[in-house]
């Protein structure tokens, strides 16, 4: 039954796809994609340590160049790709100068493979490792448009430009709410480099990979670039209030906000009679937090009565803790019945680990859907249909007894009729 429906749905989808394909020629789509084109910037460490020859017998730089060439060949058409280097130019010993050394090697835009490859070929391992400033600049490069944004950072050493902690920089970039992800790759990293790079990745919901072989590098970078091409819903930034009266009113959609430790966030949703409110929330831990945590989402009336709540708690390593709730508002026959304002209250019990900055708050993602509520027609159980051997037995017994009774009654009637 389900299969048949799926099949029918599949055929419909196919037809729809074909029709859409005919109705919207490629040219019409091109304009739109420019605005929402996914943007990726590859940030490559060209510091002196990249000279080390420990990746499959070649130098780290050679491995990176080869990987870049392969990735440039395989980059999907719609991806706007840029390349930024850090530590490529300044040879001196002045830390201040060295830490400004980051340069856009190839601007983010439609890719010209030959130009990009030529640019990469000129690179030679040189200077310092200013990861923090490079990330800031890279975020600037990716500004504009509303597509997905991704920075792929390839480095072989930790940042040499303290006190600007690249991990903090990453968190601040993420806090701008522009939906930027930073993926990091460590080339034969030591423990400190690994910690720093994985911290950067965690701060933005990206991934960290440890690279020890050439093909690992090109596979991974290629995969990350391709991943950027997948269409993804970009959340809308919103800012919840500290109580319901001042809360922003949300419609169906995907939202993002920051939630500070120990604070509350309130949002409002208006729900018409006969509609159902669905809200789901994920709070991500983008920094070191204590290992026990939870999240509570409550739907409350404007008068403060709790309608329903969603809660989740957990322990141990996690990227986010999520929960959700649904509230079907009953339909009424009264035409004048107006929409109800439901307040959503969000709190978490994350606590920052010792020595960890608490602002900006933790990033959260909120999905709001107001859909048709249960519409009264029920499934078959409501018709009193049953199943099982006991049901069959009972029906047979009842039928048999009814037959017997009917038979006796009619015999009795015949007997009475004959007597008269």
């Amino acid at each position, binding site marked *: 039954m*389900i*299969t048949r*429906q*799926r099949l029918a*749905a*599949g055929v419909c989808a196919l037809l729809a796809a074909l029709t*859409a394909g005919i109705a*919207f020629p490629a040219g019409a*789509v091109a304009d739109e994609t420019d605005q929402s084109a996914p943007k990726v910037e590859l940030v490559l460490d060209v510091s002196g340590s990249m000279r080390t020859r420990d990746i499959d017998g070649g130098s780290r730089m050679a491995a990176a160049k080869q990987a870049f060439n392969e990735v440039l060949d395989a980059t999907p058409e719609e991806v706007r790709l840029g390349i930024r280097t850090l530590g490529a130019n300044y040879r001196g010993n002045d830390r201040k100068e060295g830490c400004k050394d980051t340069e856009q090697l190839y601007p983010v835009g439609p890719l010209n493979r030959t130009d990009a490859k030529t640019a990469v070929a000129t690179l030679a391992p040189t200077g310092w490792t200013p990861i923090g400033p490079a990330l800031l600049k890279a975020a600037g490069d990716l500004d504009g448009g509303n597509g997905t944004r991704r920075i792929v950072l390839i480095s072989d050493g930790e940042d040499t430009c303290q006190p600007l902690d690249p991990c903090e920089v990453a968190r601040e970039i993420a806090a701008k709410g522009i939906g930027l992800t930073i993926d990091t790759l460590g080339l034969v*990293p030591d*423990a400190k480099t*690994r*910690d720093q790079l*994985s911290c950067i990745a965690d701060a933005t919901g990206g*991934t*960290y*990979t*440890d690279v020890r072989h050439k093909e*690992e590098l090109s596979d991974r970078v290629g*995969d990350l670039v*391709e*991943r950027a091409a*997948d*269409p993804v*819903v*970009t959340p809308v930034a919103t800012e919840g209030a500290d109580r319901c009266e001042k809360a922003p009113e949300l419609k*169906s*959609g*995907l939202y993002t906000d920051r939630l500070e430790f120990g604070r509350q966030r309130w949002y409002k949703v208006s729900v018409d009679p006969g509609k*159902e409110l669905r809200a*789901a929330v*994920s709070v991500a831990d983008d920094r070191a937090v204590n290992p026990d945590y939870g999240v509570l989402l409550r739907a409350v009336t404007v008068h403060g009565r709790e309608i329903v709540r*969603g809660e989740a708690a957990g322990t*141990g*390593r*996690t990227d*986010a803790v*999520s*929960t959700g*709730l*649904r509230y*079907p508002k009953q339909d009424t026959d009264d035409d004048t019945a107006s929409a109800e304002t439901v307040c959503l209250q969000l709190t978490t019990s994350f606590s920052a680990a010792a020595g960890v900055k608490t602002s900006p708050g933790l990033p959260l993602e909120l999905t*709001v*859907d107001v*859909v048709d509520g249960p519409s009264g027609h*029920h*499934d078959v*159980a409501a018709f009193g*249909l*049953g*199943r099982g051997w006991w049901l*069959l037995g009972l*029906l*047979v017994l009842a*039928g*048999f007894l*009814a*037959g017997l009774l*009917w*038979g006796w009654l009619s015999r009795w009637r015949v007997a009475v009729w004959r007597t008269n």
Partner: protein
Amino acid sequence: MRITRMLGAALLALGLAAGPAAADSSPSPSASADGDAPTRAGSSFRTATEIEQGQSATASGSTGDYLYWSFPADTGQRPTVRATVKLPATHGSETWQLDVYDGLRRRQACQYGAQTRTAAQGAASVELACVLRTVRGWSEPWADDPLPGTYYLRLTVVDLAAADLGQPVSAEVRADSKDIGGAAAVDGTLGKPLVPGIAAKSAGQGDGSKTAVLSSFGRDDGWSSGWWSDRWVWTGIGAVLAALAGIGGYVLTRGSGRPSRVPPTV
């Protein structure tokens, strides 16, 4: 008379065969040739890779990644999720975990299956499984019973040595389900399945543009309406059997044929 009996016997046999058969008819997961199964996993709920039931999805990643997939599950199905992670050649002891979340991102409990498992030092792979509760058509808003809609899988390592972070791993996941049928029927249906973003999706339908959606399941419906259930078969057969038993009972009271005392002229 004989015809009636034969018919009765035949119906009974049919009923016996059809009842359980209808209950067992699994939804034959459309195993759309593993050739086009996804080879990548998402990194959050928002970017989760969509898979169909019965599809073996693979992904390569790094230890420490959070790998996300999503699949649709319909009323009456009891989904089972399995994951196999191939670990790098050398590694310390690490604990992997497979979590399942519903369309509202509420964590779903596993009835059985090793949801969390620790791979010993140097183990080649680790296998995880989770058998969910049966998806029901409706539940109270205050319960977190599984409802028809999108289900998310999250596969990750939850405990590892710092040196093992970022090592290449590959994972394979698969979601199958057993059809529980009418046994799981409850008195109610949802207006729309629990598919995130379904409100925005139905509003923006028909403009033909390929926009990103949170979850594309049920775009062309495909969800069971809740009108069909094996309860129709059971109850129908029950009614027929009851009627036959009624005739049988009636016949018993009449004896065989016409009463001998009644003169043929009456």
